[in-house]
């Protein structure tokens, strides 16, 4: 580490082919281009969007499971929103939030309460019941969640990272418990919400409740996920986004450089919570039932796993991470259980052949998420698609001189721990994480 001079590093990284070829996203070629070419910037967005927009047009005859696929993908888009929202808090501002589910549940209950839903009147409830307009409920859910984000953030601002994580975790636990035990919200019975009424469009009347055509809701979720992604993108490059990164890298230095810690952190919380609230309203309208048991701690961890898997702070990465994990859970795992049991684990007379016969493969998701979390942190802390800011550093374009690491949260050695930490920090920012094994080879 110490033998690498910054100058030498810069000269090596200047030829980007040498410095970036260590990555599977650069090594694996698809149609003559490396994977990274497809999954960065506008190309990734456009490719994903085109596929996403065209997918509902796939006819039943071509893929009989298309409607369940759309349902699964609607849920995937809701989780893309959640992951992008958490990414603002954890990836941009570096505040580890383990209770993100709280904002999700607040949004969901706003939707359910706003449509006067309860399980008790589920059967009698006509869909003509007057409710608040969906757009208003979306806004209300988001704003209420955002306010709670500030309420949670305000007293915890002075806390260090790991303490903050535990406090947010406590908040995430308390909120569902409160909903579970307040009679207004029908306790552990939960509530049902009324889905948005049909919309008259140039393409005809679009119903959000037709089980044979899930495309309207699918498109709505896609639209909102795209809006959140665009918002994330705009925020990242704004002055507030740079202030978040500054806080993430070094709070004390950021404060002495004139960043208002209180306002900047609170804004991160509020915006993250805002997005969580939108996702909650969408979820409640989509399912359309809300129950406290569906908003447990594991949801927070699932969203965190999505962010860590994709790459903290990386928009494309977080979207990819959310899509992989949620699709795995709501579609793949739900579908492999019966075939696996039928073909491998149960004899034709129904007797179990193997101890795995008793395993419900559709419930393996948390085990998989846990393993992924550990593997990613140990082997690839920068995520599947590292943040673009880090890429710029590797190319030596300016950012490296500022000593800004892309994923400081996970990669940069905390200043002041080691004796020589300050002296090494310049090398550290450029070559930590995945860079370290490359160092071994090069040096």
């Amino acid at each position, binding site marked *: 580490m110490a033998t690498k001079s910054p100058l030498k590093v810069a000269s090596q990284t200047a030829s980007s082919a040498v410095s970036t070829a260590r990555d599977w996203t650069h090594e694996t070629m698809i149609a003559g281009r490396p994977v990274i070419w497809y999954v960065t910037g506008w190309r990734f967005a456009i490719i994903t969007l085109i596929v996403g927009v065209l997918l509902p047009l796939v006819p039943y005859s071509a893929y009989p499971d298309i409607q369940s696929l759309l349902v699964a993908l609607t849920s995937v888009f809701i989780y893309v929103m959640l992951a992008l929202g958490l990414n603002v808090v954890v990836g941009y501002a570096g505040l580890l939030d383990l209770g993100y589910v709280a904002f999700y549940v607040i949004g969901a209950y706003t939707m359910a309460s706003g449509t006067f839903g309860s399980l008790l009147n589920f059967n009698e409830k006509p869909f003509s019941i007057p409710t608040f307009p969906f757009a208003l409920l979306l806004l209300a859910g988001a704003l209420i969640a955002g306010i709670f984000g500030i309420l949670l953030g305000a*007293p915890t601002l002075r806390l260090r990272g790991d303490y903050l994580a535990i406090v947010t975790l406590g908040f995430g636990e308390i909120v569902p418990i409160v909903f579970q035990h307040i009679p207004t919200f029908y306790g552990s019975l939960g509530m049902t919400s009324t889905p948005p009424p049909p919309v008259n469009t140039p393409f005809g009347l679009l119903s959000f409740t037709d089980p044979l055509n899930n495309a309207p809701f699918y498109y709505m979720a896609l639209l909102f996920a795209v809006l959140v992604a665009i918002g994330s993108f705009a925020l990242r490059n704004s002055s507030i986004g740079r202030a978040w990164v500054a806080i993430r890298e070094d709070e004390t230095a950021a404060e002495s450089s004139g960043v208002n810690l209180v306002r900047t952190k609170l804004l991160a919380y509020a915006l993250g919570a805002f997005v969580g609230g939108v996702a909650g309203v969408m979820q409640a309208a989509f399912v359309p039932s809300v129950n406290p048991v569906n908003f447990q701690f594991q949801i927070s961890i699932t969203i965190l796993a999505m962010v860590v898997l994709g790459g903290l702070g990386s928009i494309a990465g977080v979207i990819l991470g959310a899509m992989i994990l949620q699709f795995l859970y709501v579609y793949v795992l739900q579908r492999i259980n019966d075939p696996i049991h039928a073909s491998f684990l149960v004899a034709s007379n129904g007797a179990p052949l193997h101890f795995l016969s008793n395993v419900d493969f559709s419930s393996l998701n948390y085990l998989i998420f846990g393993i992924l979390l550990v593997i990613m942190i140990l082997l690839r802390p920068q995520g599947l698609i590292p943040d673009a800011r880090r890429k710029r550093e590797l190319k030596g374009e300016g950012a490296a001189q500022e000593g800004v690491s892309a994923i400081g949260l996970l990669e940069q050695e905390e200043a002041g721990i080691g004796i020589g930490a300050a002296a090494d920090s310049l090398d550290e920012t450029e070559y930590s994480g995945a860079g370290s094994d490359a160092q071994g080879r090069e040096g």
Partner: protein
Amino acid sequence: MLTLATVMTHAAISPLGFFFQQIEIGITRGAMYALIALGYTLVYGIIELINFAHGDICMWATIVTLAVVQTMGITAPPNPIALVGLLVLLLVIGMTVSATLNVTIERFFYKPLRKAPRLAPLIAAIGVSLILEEVAALWRGRSFVGFPSIFPDVGISIGSVRIALLDVVIVVVSLALMYALDYFIRHTRMGKAMRATAQDPEAAALMGVNINRTISTTFIIGGALAGAAGVFYNLYIQQVWYFTGFQLGLIAFTAAVLGGIGNIYGAVLGGFLIGLIESLAIAYVPNGFAFSDAIVFAILVLILVVRPSGLLGQQTPNKV
């Protein structure tokens, strides 16, 4: 005042007796929380990691000792001599399982991240916690499994307060373990190394302390104490559940923070206090059982906001 006293003497269970019964329950639970909190505080004191998987380490002691008891086919209390032997056996197995698990996890998942920023090992610990829970769920399923009543239901009554022998055993053995830990840390070479490492790992290394061995020992001790707590939990609550560790861990972490994380006396004090607060909250707060977790968390948030260093901890300035 006089009327109040009259009411107390005439009630079937006097309010005062009810109160002291809650205190008795609180102390017993507090002993278990203190044992787990010690593991949090030892690990945090030495490598500044919130060992998120610590509660699940304790859960694994409950699940393994349940398997042992089931394998031995014990469903009712044995005779007193056999009971003592059985308790010792369960404690040894539970403590060994937890200590081994804890030190193995440290070696493979936390040690490679020792130089990483502090949130990296925390996220790894969260992942490990999920893995431990889910593997336990694969083994024993996701519903509660009853632990047989192997401890005879005997005890003494003082007024209307009943003190079960089991509660006495739990508290006494817990206190003995805590005393042993205190002695170990204060009077042995390894204890001295642990204190030195907690103060300044690099300076300790320069003085010849084997940092890796010291950290491993810390994890072994913390795991063993959690294992003992797991065995007591089995005897006391008599329910084994894959998700027990999450709740136990959070309560114990709150206890460690309440006492001042990094301070072993603080962890013991915090453990007993949280036990008392919890049992009193369940008894006196309306719908207290449902809200007991929320109350514990609210306390945690309150301490961290008002006095992050805890009751016995020292205020540390932000390192630059």
